[in-house]
């Protein structure tokens, strides 16, 4: 069996940042991703990021992704693409599969940065072709450069729903409306303003009743809902669309963390079941770290910071960083992370993170 210092599973924002930090500290790092190219969801984030200069605010996600790839290469991270981690076995041994061949790789430290998957919403007609995740539509338009349809109804006015609506417009589709069950828009108001200026109505307090069509979506019906989420009779509106995008939240992709025996905690605000971890992102299983959406659904900026934190902490645990240097470097990241979790949009996530730390007994 092959051995290495560190394996990072998932080559998205968190995994790349973790790999770079650990490799720069001198660890031998293998970064594994099941896709043909690394970057995770960064390469479909074609909008400019928020935050401050240290978070690379004002830069588009694609460019941050390109920079991370370059840094990873320069740091000597071994990137293995098209490789699925199919199992987590005892003694930190990972089962890998690539081109129908399997092998095992054992690591002293493992960082799981497996990301998240989109939630679905069931309604009559939701299985029809044309109903898809908002993230799916974003992949199609921004990476593969193909429109999923000509006219779209977006369900969900969180940041994903708002951003993807805007990007669908940029790609040349029409977005007939954004529907949000809550009475208010939960994403950033500025994202909502952009699509309102572009002529897209946002129906808060509304839900999708059904999608209709013979072989694929041809029409949707929405309606206002009361306080108990029941549709109000007489408020139905119909739209002729060929696509419905669902932006109704994300859930951590936690299979490997479950297999590794990590302790979990249920926190709906950040996606449901998430692995408990300490301030170094280390889980209840010593030597196994988590970062990014797996550690609680947030955004690319926080994912990168969490990745850096996990990479530094794991490098420190390996002895690649002195505890003095490690502590100083981690303190910088903690500060940057804290800055992203303040205000009315960040407060709930900050509380959720405190809950996780308390569950680990370090809060």
């Amino acid at each position: 069996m092959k051995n290495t210092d560190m394996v990072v599973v998932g080559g998205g924002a968190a995994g790349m940042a973790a790999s770079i930090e650990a490799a720069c500290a001198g660890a031998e790092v293998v970064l594994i991703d099941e896709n043909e190219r690394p970057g995770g969801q960064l390469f479909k984030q074609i909008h400019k990021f928020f935050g401050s200069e240290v978070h690379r605010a004002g830069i588009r996600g694609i460019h941050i992704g390109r920079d991370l790839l370059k840094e990873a290469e320069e740091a000597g991270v071994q990137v293995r693409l098209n490789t699925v981690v199919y199992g987590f076995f005892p003694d930190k041994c990972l089962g890998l599969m690539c081109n129908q061949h399997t092998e095992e790789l054992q690591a002293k430290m493992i960082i799981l940065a497996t990301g998240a998957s989109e939630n679905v919403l069931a309604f009559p007609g939701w299985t029809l072709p044309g109903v898809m995740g908002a993230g799916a539509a974003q992949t199609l338009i921004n990476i593969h450069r193909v429109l999923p349809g000509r006219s779209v109804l977006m369900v969900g006015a969180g940041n994903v729903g708002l951003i993807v609506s805007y990007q669908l417009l940029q790609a040349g589709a029409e977005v007939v409306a954004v529907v949000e069950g809550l009475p208010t828009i939960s994403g950033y108001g500025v994202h909502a303003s952009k699509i309102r200026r572009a002529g897209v109505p946002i129906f808060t307090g509304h839900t999708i009743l059904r999608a209709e069509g013979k072989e694929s979506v041809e029409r949707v019906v929405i309606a206002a809902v009361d306080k108990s989420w029941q549709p109000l009779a007489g408020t139905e509106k119909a739209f002729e669309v060929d696509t419905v995008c669902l932006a109704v939240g994300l859930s951590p992709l936690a299979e490997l963390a479950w297999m590794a025996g990590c302790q979990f905690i249920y926190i709906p605000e950040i996606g449901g079941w998430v692995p408990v971890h300490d301030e170094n992102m280390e889980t209840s299983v010593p030597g196994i770290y988590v970062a990014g959406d797996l550690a609680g659904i947030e955004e690319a900026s926080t994912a990168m910071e969490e990745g850096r934190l996990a990479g530094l902490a794991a490098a420190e645990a390996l002895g690649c960083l002195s505890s003095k240097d490690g502590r100083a470097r981690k303190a910088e990241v903690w500060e940057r992370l804290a800055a992203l979790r303040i205000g009315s949009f960040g407060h709930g996530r900050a509380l959720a993170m405190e809950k996780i730390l308390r569950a680990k007994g370090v809060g």
Partner: protein
Amino acid sequence: MKKARAREGIRTTGIPSKEELEASPGYPKSDCLARGPIVVIECVQDIPCNPCEGACPSGAIKVGNPITNLPVFDVEKCDGCGTCIPICPGQAIFRVDMTYQTDEATVSFPYEFLPLPKKGDVVQGIDRAGGAVCEAEVLRVQQPKGFDHTAVITVIVPKNMAMEVRSIKRAKR
């Protein structure tokens, strides 16, 4: 009346209300508009974000600590250069020049759609709700490399529309 107001505002409609705008420290007081071209920051939520602060060459925008502070705009220092417009990830910064002509003002805004209009095109001016409110003549389309594909378009509109027009109607592709 009260009920109607509860349904307004950025959290409900996606459009900042008049009250929200006027309460924001980035939104210039109406008497400042007569001075010449100045930026109008329509940032009304405590998003952790501050690139506008660093972008301004004359130090007219202050966010400070924490970065969820709303940007504070100092009209005295603003020379209306508009460097901040393409930088704002929320596309919430505009420029208004009420001194352009007697009856006409100019409005500059970020724009990321194709096709781009050309100087001299007469297009429809669009307000914050996406409605066409007036005709607008394209005065300038700036898209230098540093803007990273965010064009900044300047249109000429009737003066009374300068604080309403925030974009233009997208042309069919």
